[in-house]
């Protein structure tokens, strides 16, 4: 009996919500579903895919932005999808890859952070959050091999270092801290080229929003799976910033102004790119 009581101490090391689900409600975890597709990667054409996410640091914080398109093969599956979410008060998460699994991962990660905070009475460190997210991405590896990969981008304000930081991941659960800016998804190569030219140290928040919208515009220009600003339906990218005050969603009317300015300035320039 005393050994059993002592073992409870070791078990209490993890207050993870997803571990709890895995032990007691495994059917609720998307990563536990076993699917056998006839060919490797055959899952890719089955479900909508979310595309480009960009993230960049600015003075006193970090920003993340995503376009509004999801594709299924050559068809546009959604023009309204949102792919950037607040994970908790001081971090945001953007997702690229299979939309269904990615949205589920986001929801699980949000509960994971809140659960830890409520049980422990304190917030998880930013590195702790990034490590938890990496572990959750790794659990999805079997699905990724079937073509249903999820690649998140994670950014947050480090309350002990007083700076914005950003992390990228691979499907095996690799976690990489990125400097200055990063992008993921099908249009990421084009967005990165744009970010390299537009990003500068110590941007203010408004200029950071402008840079993000331009980078997404450039991605949409060359990648058919990324949606540009839609002036007909009045759909603008989803942009979140995180600083010492917490996460904030940039309101649509500000994004509308920024997006229309980008379109106007490029129309006036009248050049090929």
């Amino acid at each position, binding site marked *: 009996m005393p050994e059993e009581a002592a073992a409870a101490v070791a078990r209490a090391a993890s207050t993870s*919500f997803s571990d*709890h*689900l895995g032990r007691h*409600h495994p059917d609720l975890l998307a990563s536990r579903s076993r699917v056998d597709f006839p060919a490797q990667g055959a899952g890719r054409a089955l479900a909508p895919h979310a595309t480009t996410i960009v993230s960049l640091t600015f003075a006193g914080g970090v920003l993340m932005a995503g376009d509004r398109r999801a594709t299924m093969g050559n068809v546009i599956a959604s023009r309204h999808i949102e792919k950037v979410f607040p994970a908790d008060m001081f971090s945001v998460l953007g997702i690229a890859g299979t939309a269904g699994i990615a949205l589920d991962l986001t*929801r699980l990660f949000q*509960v994971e952070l809140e*659960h830890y905070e*409520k*049980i422990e009475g304190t917030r998880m460190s930013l590195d702790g959050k990034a490590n938890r997210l990496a572990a959750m991405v790794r659990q999805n590896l079997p699905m990724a091999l079937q073509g249903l990969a999820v690649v998140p981008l994670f950014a947050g304000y480090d309350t002990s270092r007083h700076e914005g930081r950003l992390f990228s991941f691979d499907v095996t659960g690799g976690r990489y801290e990125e400097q200055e800016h990063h992008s993921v998804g099908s249009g990421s190569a084009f967005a990165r080229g744009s970010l390299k030219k537009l990003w500068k140290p110590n941007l203010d928040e408004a200029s950071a929003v402008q840079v993000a919208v331009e980078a997404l515009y450039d991605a949409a220009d060359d990648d058919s799976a990324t949606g540009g600003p839609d002036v007909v339906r009045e759909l603008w990218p989803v942009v979140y910033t995180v600083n010492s005050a917490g996460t904030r969603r940039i309101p649509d009317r500000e994004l509308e102004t920024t997006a229309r300015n980008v379109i106007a300035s490029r129309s006036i320039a009248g050049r090929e790119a």
Partner: protein
Amino acid sequence: MTQQFYVSPEQLMRDRADFARKGIGRGRSVIVLSCRDGIALVAENPSPSLHKLGEIYDRIAFAAVGKYNEFESLRQAGIRYADVRGYSYDREDVTARGLASVYAQSLGAVFTAESKPFEVELVVAEVGEQPATDHLYRLTFDGSIADEKGFVVMGGAAEAVVEVLRSSFSEDLDFPEAVRAAVHSLRQDGSTGAGPQLGPESLEVAVLDRDPEVARGTHRAFRRIGIPELETMLTSRESPV
């Protein structure tokens, strides 16, 4: 082999209830009040980190008296219950009523089947749109559950505290007024506690905001009141904050 003496079930239950009641009475009181701004939770607690009050879910809080290890495990189990339920259904499908009835079953099972009952008393509080739709569920060590209106006092010299609080309580109080009324009645309980000099550092206070979305832009209504804010609450007698 030891021979067991016959004890009548009535006697057995009475002994267990007395045992649990004694354990709970030794502690200090916790007050949960429903008022105009939301629900205020006030506890006499000298420790700033070993909490008697906790957040369970968006609009649900937990308050307990008795043995720390026992109510702490119940609090954690409650958070798991709420988070699993909210994750598998939807956030709005997590209710205090559901949680309170699960707690009641677990407390009742332990009371009758285990060698020792839980020496705890709990309140599961859910803040509604108006004071009329607030829910305060009081759960006792034997698994009985009561749906209380207005306010609940548990632990310590609860009767004495109730007497004092009844005269100053009304549904129209704002948070500072409700906290002052609660602290005033805690000071009058005449038990071994800090007595009249019960200051902010020996109090644990938390609130469930009625409209957290408007006030703080979040769906989580639970908020701990830190010592500086509590000081202003307790001193601003004439000018409401």
